[in-house]
């Protein structure tokens, strides 16, 4: 999970999140800003982008947390939940990005 700090740095160019969880939240929100995704698509996306294979237990609880906080919402796709970013999530992403560039 320590590598997730690098995720946040890489994503913002020069930013550094307070914790690895916050870094992963930032990365997930960035992915979802581009398009709605399934949980496994996010895991695949992180692997393709950063070369790190995170487990379901690392990623899915964060999806639940973000949904509980209203930053993302989930809906049923064909047979599986799909996640999309909310306005609140976009605001959060923007403020985290600003923090990263300060």
């Amino acid at each position, binding site marked *: 999970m320590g590598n997730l700090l690098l995720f946040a740095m890489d994503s913002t160019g020069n930013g550094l999140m307070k914790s690895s969880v916050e870094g992963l939240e930032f990365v997930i929100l960035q992915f979802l800003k581009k398009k709605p995704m*399934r*949980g*496994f698509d996010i*895991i*695949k996306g992180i*692997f*393709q982008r950063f070369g790190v*294979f995170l*487990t*379901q*237990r690392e990623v*899915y*609880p964060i999806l*639940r947390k973000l949904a509980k906080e209203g930053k993302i919402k989930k809906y049923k796709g*064909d*047979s*599986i*939940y799909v996640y999309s970013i909310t306005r609140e999530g976009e605001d959060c992403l923007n403020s985290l990005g600003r923090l990263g560039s300060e």
Partner: protein
Amino acid sequence: MKVMVVDDEVEIIELVENMLSPEGIKVIEATSGKECLQKLREERPDFIFLDIMMPGMDGWETLKKIKENPKFRDIPVAMFTVKPLTSKTLKRKEIDDIVDYVTKPFSKEDLLEVLRQVADI
């Protein structure tokens, strides 16, 4: 909820059953790809955990046959594997047909996290 577990190692199936039964999840056993396809015709599961490395018809081939059948195509499938995800695996066209990829050894919580992506449990 009914979950089919397809693995040539009976111990793995028993392990999954011990993990999921207390949660009220029924486990349907299949020890080969062929048995999986036979049992699908008898009882439709809500989800399939499918081992990649199996003698005879392996997991990817079994997945292909599941997805070719319009009756079973919409059943979500997650692969069991001992190997972590690689770039080569991601290039397989079948990767888009699975909803998850679970590495062994796994815990009960790992399986529940995967199932929570399809149902509120």
